[in-house]
């Protein structure tokens, strides 16, 4: 369990590129090609492949199997899938690499919100007894968080009309991919590997009424377990806040001050669902690849009102 794992490449769909009418695998192919080209690896040379997506988003059972065409999964490869954001697929791949089951991993994720009604789809992840029958849409639930922040005094008015500030831009269709590698392999594939110093994910109760919606204790705990509060401090933080009001909650839970560059890649609200968290990890790593960060924090979330949170701390090579 001592093998160090690094993110060695990252690629994401160009948000400006038209995606109308494309299938999931057609969205994914350019991203897979780009991330593999960055490492010089071919699809068949990857030790473990893991993806994240949602059948509810696609409107089809086992929809991830069609995307598998894009990674050359025949004859069969070592492969897995999480019905979650790709950040959690990265976690699974990290465990595989740490435990010596593979030396390289391809992690990818995609979301095609244009296929359906995202607000309706996301109500289906809620507790089926008390919440899902009411069909509360995610913007409404995030607005509850904003109200909780206002009531706690942590968020300063102007109080938005109607109690909720407008959401960010609507999520677009797209995909993202990263390549992970261990130790010497990572150094061979990347000039400045982004070493995963720590990664952890935690979850809160599904009952909204038993949580303090103005706080994110699961983010704080995951961050502590990932080493985010250890020295030296992070200089960059890529936060996955699907709704603008959630960013102050995350900043506070992660103790980010003015010295930290928060979301230099841009806000996450418009990123494709199920890929948005993986994109935060990828963007944090890419900043290290470019030499713009020494130590970066990446955060991904899932569920209503920041229910589940994943935090990773990435580091460049120590100075020589």
């Amino acid at each position, binding site marked *: 369990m001592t093998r160090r794992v690094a993110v060695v490449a990252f690629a994401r769909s160009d948000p400006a590129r038209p995606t*109308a*009418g*494309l*299938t999931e*695998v*057609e969205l994914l*192919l350019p991203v*897979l*090609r780009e991330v593999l080209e960055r490492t010089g690896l071919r*699809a*068949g040379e990857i030790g473990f492949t893991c993806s994240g997506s949602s059948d*509810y988003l696609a*409107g089809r059972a086992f929809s991830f199997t*069609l995307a*598998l*065409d*894009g*990674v*050359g*999964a*025949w*004859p069969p490869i070592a492969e897995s899938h999480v019905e979650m954001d790709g950040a959690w697929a990265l976690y699974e791949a990290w465990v595989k690499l740490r435990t010596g089951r593979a030396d390289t991993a391809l992690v990818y994720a995609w979301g095609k919100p*244009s*296929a*359906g*009604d995202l*607000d*309706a*789809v996301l*109500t*289906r992840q809620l507790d*089926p*007894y*008390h*919440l*899902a*029958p*009411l*069909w*509360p*849409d995610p913007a*409404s*639930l995030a*607005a*509850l968080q*904003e*109200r*909780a922040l206002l*009531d706690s005094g942590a968020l300063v008015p102007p109080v938005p*009309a*109607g*109690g*909720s500030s407008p959401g960010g831009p609507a999520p677009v269709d797209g995909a993202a991919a990263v390549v992970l590698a261990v130790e010497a392999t990572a150094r061979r594939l990347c000039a400045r590997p982004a070493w995963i110093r720590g990664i952890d994910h935690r979850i809160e*109760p599904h*009952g*909204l*009424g*038993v949580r303090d*919606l103005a706080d994110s204790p699961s983010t704080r705990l995951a961050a502590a377990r990932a080493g985010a509060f250890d020295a030296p401090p992070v200089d960059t933080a890529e936060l996955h806040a699907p709704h603008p009001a959630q960013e102050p909650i995350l900043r506070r839970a992660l103790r980010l001050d003015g010295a930290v560059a928060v979301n230099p890649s841009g806000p996450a609200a418009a990123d494709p669902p199920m890929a948005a968290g993986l994109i935060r990890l990828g963007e944090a790593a890419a900043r290290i690849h470019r030499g713009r960060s020494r130590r970066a924090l990446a955060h991904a979330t899932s569920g209503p009102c920041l229910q589940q949170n994943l935090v990773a701390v990435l580091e460049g090579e120590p100075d020589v």
Partner: protein
Amino acid sequence: MSELLSAPLTVEFPFTRSLGPVQGAFLTGLRERVVLGVRRPDGRVLVPPLEYDPDTAADLHELVEVGTTGTVTCWAWNPTPRRGQPLGTPFAWVLVRLDGADSALLHALDAPDPGAVRTGLRVRVRWAAERTGAITDIACFEAYEGEGEEGGAHAADVAEPADRADGAEVADRTDVAEPADRADGAEAADRTDVAEPVDRADGAEVADRTDVAEPADRADGADAAGRTDVEEPADAADPTGAVPRARPHDGVFADPVTSLAAPARLDYTYTPGRAHGRHLAALADRRTVGERCPACRKVYVPPRGACPTCGVATDEPVEVGPRGTVTTFCVVNIKARGLAIEVPYVYAHIALDGADLALHGRVAGLPYDRVRMGLRVEPVWVGDGRHPDHYRPTGEPDAPYDTYRELL
């Protein structure tokens, strides 16, 4: 060639879930206009109840009854109600801590505008007229504090006629945005209509039923102010003022609800994608077009846009067929519902000439027990169908095994 095909796709899944003793009692209680919670080891009361403690995961089973009045702990205005939500008119989502509970329950608050809502607002349950043992047995909450408050008994009174008009208006507005929604919007408005006027009459009926079912409970009800409120919600403008404590409840009801039917419907727009779209467009001209992998040169029919062996995009359209070879087949003896084809019939994998992947098709035009591997077939198009109805023998000699063994 760039025709973008799309089609509406509706996915409906009527999940049925078992409830167990805690959720079963909670939802049966709602049907009987009783709100139950569960007590945690530290004494605090969870409403809605969970089967396990959210902090310690301890098993929870000590049921208690809480009030049907409570306090708003958090809220958010919802200006554009969606299909399935509790009210068809703009409303506030509220987290309500019911009197006697220590956690909050999410529901809708019927309020005229966001100015009438605040954290700390006193509210009470408005029961649905028809209750089945579901969270929607609570139609919504309504403000009930008296003078000085925006929502009080007074507001509740005027809410009814206004609500109805609004409901219709919302249904119309929804139509503009989402045509498919119309029926639902109307239904939502109706539901609201029915819920309120019937409520009072129903209250008496439920009180009777409860008396019969649980004589032991009646004494309890009589000496608890909160309980009296439950029975006559609409007239209880002025409760005693004391916040009721959670009281033990055995969770036993006549005819308990043991499962929950959770219907869900999601609407999608299906798009076949670039490669498959091109394939479908060619089929409209009665041509079968696959795509060639630039790396291994295999031709995939129908194309999915990528070569599953090489992991690269296929990009070169290739017309294949129309004739092909049966590589393998099965005889179908079970009639599919809604399918007009008589059994037995033959369903086969057919490798069209020039294709490196067999596609599926029905084989007819000869007795089912004469179909064999290697049989040469050609498509039969019927009417304006956008794909071959079936394949029939060409009369050619059978293809030698070696010509299709790689395609099995």
